[in-house]
């Protein structure tokens, strides 16, 4: 299971893969080229009233960026500590 950690900060949200090696290995095991670099995505929250629906929409895009989609078949969760 790959975990994306979501950190709420004053001006937005930061998304980061919790254990990059587990993530890389999970992709490699499925024959998917993993990234060489560690990435984290900072989403500036312009609208403080952004609802859960819009948050889940961009989180889907972040999962796509990391190739953590049903097509890649890597179990993934986003945790919001």
């Amino acid at each position, binding site marked *: 299971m790959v975990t994306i950690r979501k950190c709420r900060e004053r001006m937005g949200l*930061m998304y*980061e893969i919790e254990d990059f090696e587990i993530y890389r290995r999970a992709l490699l095991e499925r024959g*998917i*080229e*993993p*990234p*060489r*670099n*560690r*990435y*984290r*995505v*900072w*989403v*500036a*929250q*312009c*609208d403080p009233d*952004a609802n859960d629906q*819009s948050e889940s*929409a*961009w989180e889907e*895009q*972040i999962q*796509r*960026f990391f*190739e953590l989609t049903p*097509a890649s078949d890597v179990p993934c969760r986003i945790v919001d500590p």
Partner: protein
Amino acid sequence: MSIANVHDEAITISAAPGASAAALIRDVARQHMAVGNADALRWLCSHPDTPEDVLLEICDHGLCLDELGHRRGPRRLLEKLADERHYPEAIISLALELYVSALEPEGAFAAFVGRHADHAWVLESLAHKEASSPEKEAAYSLVLNAHPEAARMRTIQDSCRAERRARQSNDPAEIESLYATRDPAVWRALAGNPATPNALLAELAKARDIQCARETRNLAADTLSRR
């Protein structure tokens, strides 16, 4: 969006809410392209969300050509790799697509094969295939005739044609004459053809001293068993 290296070597991508995966990829790719970091770009070349314009830009930078060349598309990328970078796999993929697909116009095939007529491996790959129209076959023949290895490629072409006939024919006389060629690929195709007469299948089931003999024997036995 902007990108910055941080102390723990993670790269932070700043995105507006609603940024698509393609937009994130575009931003990351451009930053890596700017410093010619092919290693970092490699995973994006096979990433399903990498947009076409980014793939074309990576190609324009002359980076990751092997990774781009292993992709099946998009078409514009293959054309760029073939015509500007002379990448062999892209040339072959396009040549075959233009030759066998009825959706591809004759003129496009003729122009493409004309541009790459000096590559023996392109002409040899085409020799194994069946053109989607007589006009494409004529265009191929024209180019082939001018090539120093034309005779060898004609032999391949004739053998492949005979193999296709052997797989599809239901004319006993044609099947007999194909059997007489003793061409291993033709025999293997006849062994799997349900229209091949029992007597010939029995002979093929005893094939020896010929390439693919075991496969031919097994196929013939299998076809006979389904009678």
